């Protein structure tokens, strides 16, 4: 579906009416499922994800001999057939899904205190119910919330968002603006990257870019992305605090 980005230069409004630095509506819930060790529901615009955590639990047999002294982080992503515009079923061995699983696992291996749980596995199940851009970023944010619900110690929130650039690689447009939090129509048309940070002072824990962009535009995109991650981080913090308050109030009464 080609997207007409030419109107952007007129009013500086994007197809869904946002300005360049505006996030979509973010909504999150914690402890959505009683059977899981930790669970969360996260929405970024129309991207909706349910995350459940199993573990830390005894390491499953097989794999790397079980001799490691750190907990292993495993990620399983299931993209529902009805999540997109057309129904499409993706197998578990889809290369793109495997790459996302690896990226998420390595990002969380750094922020979680895995040395506290030797010989064990933490499994993150992500169920994508509806996708509209920023899939990887939404998965990471949902996993952060669910890991907090599971009570697994971590150094900081891992918050992620996407940034893009208004001009494609081919058009040599000098006045290209960076854009924050692309939806799926924009993602198909424009170059974009996914950025994840953890730690207060903008430590990048994940940066993935699959499209081509001119190197001069990259700096602006990353700095907008860092700002977006800061916003997401405070939103996640708000969700956690609101949930904590609710739990404490239920205890008191």
């Amino acid at each position, binding site marked *: 579906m080609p997207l007409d980005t030419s109107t952007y230069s007129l009013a500086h409004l994007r197809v869904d009416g946002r300005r360049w630095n505006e996030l979509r509506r973010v909504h999150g819930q914690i402890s*959505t*499922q*009683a059977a899981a060790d930790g669970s969360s529901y996260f929405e970024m615009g129309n991207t909706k994800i349910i995350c459940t955590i199993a573990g830390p639990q005894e390491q499953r047999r097989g794999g790397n001999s079980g001799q490691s002294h750190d907990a292993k982080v495993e990620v399983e992503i*299931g993209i529902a057939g*009805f*999540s997109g515009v057309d129904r499409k079923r993706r197998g578990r061995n889809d290369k793109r899904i495997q790459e996302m699983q690896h990226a998420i696992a390595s990002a969380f291996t750094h922020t979680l205190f895995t040395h506290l749980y030797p010989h064990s596995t933490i499994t993150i199940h992500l169920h994508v*119910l509806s996708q509209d851009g920023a899939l990887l970023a939404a998965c990471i944010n949902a996993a952060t919330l669910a890991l907090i619900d599971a009570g697994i110690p971590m150094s900081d929130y891992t918050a992620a968002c996407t940034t893009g650039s208004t001009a494609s690689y081919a058009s040599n447009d000098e006045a290209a603006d960076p854009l924050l939090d692309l939806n799926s129509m924009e993602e198909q048309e424009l170059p974009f990257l996914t950025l994840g940070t953890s730690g207060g002072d903008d430590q990048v824990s994940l940066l993935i870019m699959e499209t081509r962009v001119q190197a001069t535009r990259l700096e602006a995109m990353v700095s907008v992305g860092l700002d977006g991650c800061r916003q997401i981080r405070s939103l996640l913090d708000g969700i956690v605090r609101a949930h904590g308050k609710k739990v404490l109030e239920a205890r008191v009464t």
Partner: protein
Amino acid sequence: MANTIPLSPAELSYLHTSLSQTPPIRPDGRSPTQFRPLVAETDILPSANGSARICFADGTEAIVGVKAEVEKSSARPGATTDDIFKNSRDQDGDVDVDREESDKEGKGRDEWLEIAIEIPGMRDDDSLPVFLSAMLTEALLSDGGLKDRLWINSRFHWRLYIDILLLSQPRSYPLPLLSLTTHLALISTRIPALISEHDEDPLFNDDWEASTFLYPRSGELQARSKPPVTLLVVSIGEAVLFDPSRDELAVCDSAMAISVAQSAGAGLKVVALRMIDPPSRLTAGGVPQVLNSTSNPAATASLSPAEALVLREKDQGQTVWRPPRGGVRRAIISRIIKMVVENNGVGEEVIAGLAGVEA
């Protein structure tokens, strides 16, 4: 199922005894036909034609999304001149709804419905998901009304994809959860209203407000037609228990999945019935006192294996737990069917309860 039963023979025996009382005493104090409380919502996904989510009391959760796509019908052998003749008769202009409905009859085909079940930690071709999807498909197709409704005209039809996601590890047998969620998703499924007539390429009204429900809600006759629900029923001794918990499944004599559907203008009818291998068969039996080598070592030491077997068989589960054997009596099966389909029976109660769920 991966989950083993964490109960000792003594505990199993206790549960079995209390459940075979009249009336049975269930561990959670429910009556035999009472269901556990559940949380349900419909129309949760904007990208699906119909969707539902159900969360059971034990924490298991399922989401079902129904998606419909228009597909070109392949030529069907044996239905050529008859169809053309029928369509030429319709040229007189307005077609009333009843006529249209009866025109669709018998034109649906089984392959227009596709069910996929995803259970975490299991492959798509593992026995549990394959068995569950076969059971759910069987019930939906034998209803008959559903596949006929997917017919658009002689060249096009709807293809219905039902994706069932179990979000948690299966704690007990997940069949009732998946079936109830599918029922809920199907009654909330809407398909765009058709504008084009007869055998033209189908053209649809793009106003979602004008879309029609796959299972109509208003109108006298059709409103009564409802998708099937599959209920899990266990029998323990003479007792029949609905919505068994994990502990109850662990001691049941037999378990069966019974699918009932409500067809237009008629009451409930059974559309599918399957016996399920109950997990109680995998439990370990207890050791009768006469064979206890700790309390009477002298007596048991002299026993040959054949004699020990005879003694064990003689006990017949009277003093210690013995895994159930054999099938179920016909009288119990007919009682179960009667309890489900009778007026104001369990089937009607479940369907009425699900109809009350709001978006």
